């Protein structure tokens, strides 16, 4: 049963009473909250996700969003993210409850999933080949990712590339795409049919909104894929779209810098990264216009296999 099978009031009721077991990619999250904006965000952006019936209560992550029991709740209400019943972050203004859920879900994975090498990167796929887009905040990674998935690329993730240590394949984690500030309106005009959560202002990242992941990407969330390209995107106002070849050794070090658990995985991290880079053509990519970027991505060819 998908989240969309529940009416808004049923979803609110279940979230408040027993919580829901939500399948995102290969992970199950048990989520409990009585905060209305979270229920509304889930109903809007997670409508196509599977609700799992877990009789034994198993979940990879048990989280809840609650109102902290302090005096501020009377004049400046807040939200607190609990992981296994324990507060993980400082409380945020209540208005930021849904973004906090998204950030918290990312935190759950980047801090607890170690059968994968986790890279701070967007991942998209077309024709069976995936492109990893690692980049620091502000590089236009999520904007480019949002544009690509609205033009025929499959979304694996806009934030966390999960490279399975056992076989080097990329595991999908299609969740809403996080956009901030100007990027929100850029993508809204680029794809008027895209569904967005309401904007939340004054967060640590500025104004944020989340774009619903394409239904096809969610439906294919169990299809792992081979990597073909590692592309470091950089938005540069006025720049001509330019894809520049990057030596694999340099790409290795930069991807490692963008990884959450490369060091933690030790030799397995090195081997997984070696395999990933070996299978990839690596590029720096500068762009200013999304249509130009889409065209260049459309002309990417995978590496010819070595004999």
């Amino acid at each position, binding site marked *: 049963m998908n989240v969309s099978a529940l009416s808004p009031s049923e979803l609110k009721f279940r979230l408040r009473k027993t919580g829901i077991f939500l399948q995102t990619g290969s992970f199950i999250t048990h989520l409990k909250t009585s905060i209305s904006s979270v229920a509304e965000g889930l109903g809007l952006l997670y409508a196509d996700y599977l609700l799992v019936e877990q009789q034994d209560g198993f979940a990879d992550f048990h989280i809840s969003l609650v109102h902290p029991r302090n005096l501020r709740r009377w004049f400046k209400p807040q939200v607190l993210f609990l992981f296994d019943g324990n507060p993980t972050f400082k409380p945020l203004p209540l208005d930021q409850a849904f973004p906090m859920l998204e950030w918290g879900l990312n935190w759950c994975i980047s801090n607890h999933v170690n059968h994968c090498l986790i890279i701070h990167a967007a991942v998209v796929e077309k024709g069976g080949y995936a492109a990893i887009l690692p980049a620091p905040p502000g590089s236009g990674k999520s904007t480019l990712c949002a544009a690509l998935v609205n033009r025929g690329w499959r979304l694996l993730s806009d934030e966390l590339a999960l490279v399975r240590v056992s076989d080097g394949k990329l595991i999908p984690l299609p969740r809403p795409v996080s956009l901030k500030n100007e990027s929100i309106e850029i993508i809204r005009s680029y794809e008027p049919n895209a569904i967005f959560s309401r904007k939340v202002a004054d967060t640590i990242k500025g104004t944020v909104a989340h774009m619903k992941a394409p239904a096809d990407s969610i439906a294919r969330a169990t299809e792992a894929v081979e990597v073909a390209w590692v592309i470091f995107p950089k938005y540069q106002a006025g720049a001509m779209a330019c894809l520049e070849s990057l030596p694999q*050794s340099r790409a*290795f*070090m930069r991807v490692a810098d963008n990884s959450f658990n*490369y060091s933690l995985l030790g030799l397995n991290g090195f081997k997984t990264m070696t395999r990933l880079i070996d299978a990839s053509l690596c590029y720096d990519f500068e762009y200013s216009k999304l249509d130009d970027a889409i065209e260049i991505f459309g002309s990417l060819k995978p590496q010819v296999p070595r004999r």
Partner: protein
Amino acid sequence: MKWQVISDQVINCCSWDDELVFYNKLSGDTHLLGSAAAQVLLELRKSPSNALSLIEALAPCQPSEMVMNEESYIYIEHLLNELNMLGLIEFS
């Protein structure tokens, strides 16, 4: 005085073009070695060697003016010290 690659370190590297990415199993660090350092390391993987022998072995890969002068000796010595400090080589 000869240098050799620390035996545990031998297998944990990969090379693309003329650069080498090396995982130091003892420290957990990963190093990107440029062309010259990579060549020195690969020579030492074949057999223990000293600076003078390394200059001779690497001569075909170097510009002619670099071959067997004091500058190249100092350069190789510097690379050996760097590799030693990274925990990749030791005295044999």
